[in-house]
């Protein structure tokens, strides 16, 4: 039950963060051949329901000969969607930093990449902890869609047992309790992170 829900969320989020950073940087680039594909990706993914995306991958792709098992299907769907949302968070936090920080880095003779790595990203990372934490909590709950493509995750197991015991009320409340418990732990973790990275501003 948690055997699927937790790895599903962790793997998808980790992958999503990596792609999100690349998409965000491309979206901020002055070069149109990087920026436009990035904006296009975000537009498509953000503008369609994740459940529909999931069904396209799981039930649609077999039509064109691509059959994926349930677990990778859910990981792909969650990663694709989450990368779009997280990239918007990263793009906006990077943009929110004063232009003067770039100038300060350049004035020391740093390359654009060095300014990004040493000056911009550490500050952007700190600012984006709360919204990204929020995003992860959202992703954790969205992972319950896995049950709809036959994966026995937390919600999927609750569904099965509810169906065989005719106790849906009880089972779904238990499932909700599990989700709430883990989300509470994640919230605490997010606050810890905020504290840890917030030490330089008074």
């Amino acid at each position: 039950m948690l055997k699927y829900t937790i790895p599903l969320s962790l793997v998808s989020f980790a992958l999503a963060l990596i792609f999100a950073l690349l998409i965000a940087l491309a979206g901020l680039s002055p070069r149109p051949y990087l920026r436009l594909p990035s904006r296009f990706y975000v537009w498509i993914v953000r503008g369609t329901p994740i459940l529909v995306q999931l069904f396209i991958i799981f039930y649609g792709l077999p039509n064109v000969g691509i059959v994926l098992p349930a677990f990778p299907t859910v990981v792909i769907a969650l990663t694709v969607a989450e990368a779009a949302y997280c990239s918007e968070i990263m793009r906006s936090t990077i943009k929110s930093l004063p232009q003067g920080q770039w100038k300060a880095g350049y004035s020391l003779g740093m390359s654009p990449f060095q300014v990004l790595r040493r000056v911009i990203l550490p500050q952007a990372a700190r600012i984006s902890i709360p919204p990204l934490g929020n995003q992860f909590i959202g992703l954790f709950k969205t992972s319950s869609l896995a049950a709809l493509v036959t994966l026995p995750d937390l919600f999927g197991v609750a569904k099965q047992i509810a169906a065989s015991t005719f106790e849906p009320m009880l089972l779904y409340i238990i499932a909700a309790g599990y989700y709430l418990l883990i989300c509470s732990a994640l919230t605490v973790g997010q606050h810890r992170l905020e504290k840890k990275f917030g030490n330089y501003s008074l």
Partner: protein
Amino acid sequence: MLNVTQLRKSFGRTEVLRGIDLRVAKGETTIVIGPSGSGKSTLLNCLNLLEIPDSGELELDGQRMKFGDGGKKRTRELIGYRQKTGMVFQSHQLFPHRTALENVIEGLIVVKRWNRSDARRRGEELLAKVGLREFADRYPAQLSGGQQQRVGIARALAMDPAVLLFDEPTSALDPELVGEVLRVMKELAREGMTLIVATHEMNFAREVADRVIFMEKGLIADEGTAAHIFGASRNERVRQFLSRFDAAAELPSVPVRVQVQATL
């Protein structure tokens, strides 16, 4: 050592620099004055290539850069040039996530690839020079405006630049914090550092300037020694501009306030 020839820069349709010619010798202190919007800040930003000039030529310490010939400047070339200049910003622009010492040595470690212990030693020397040895481990947010600006100076000095540019370094400071920053700058001028300073601090300009440049509408309207500009400028606009500062300095602010309170 620094030669500027016919430097031009526009933002959109606004011509901000309309052909600046400037020669600065090693060890000289050049003060740039002029009304807001006259192009002082843009000039300094162009000298550091934080803004790329539209046309003209820059030559610093043997490196010559020509602009407006169609070719795009390579990043490597820009970086090489920028390393020879240091910049102190009006709003310090320290890196908020790094301590005072880390700010000072950032360039040494990332750009010059010094090892950490050498960089630390050099950073501590520089912080001592600007009177902040005890503040090495403070974050910028824990420092006063004057202290932040002095860390900014130390950070720029760390790269051992051929010329140090100051973009209104005291304009954003509370009046009582201005003195400590100017003191450090005077010390640098005395030591023979080459300085170009945009400022509204006229007394400071009188005291340290080897040369004063008066800018207006993107051009150098007048230039000369401090004695020339402040005493004998025949340029009507210069006299007008400076008279506002004299008038401000002569305002009897304290007695007036006492009087007002008494009549209440």
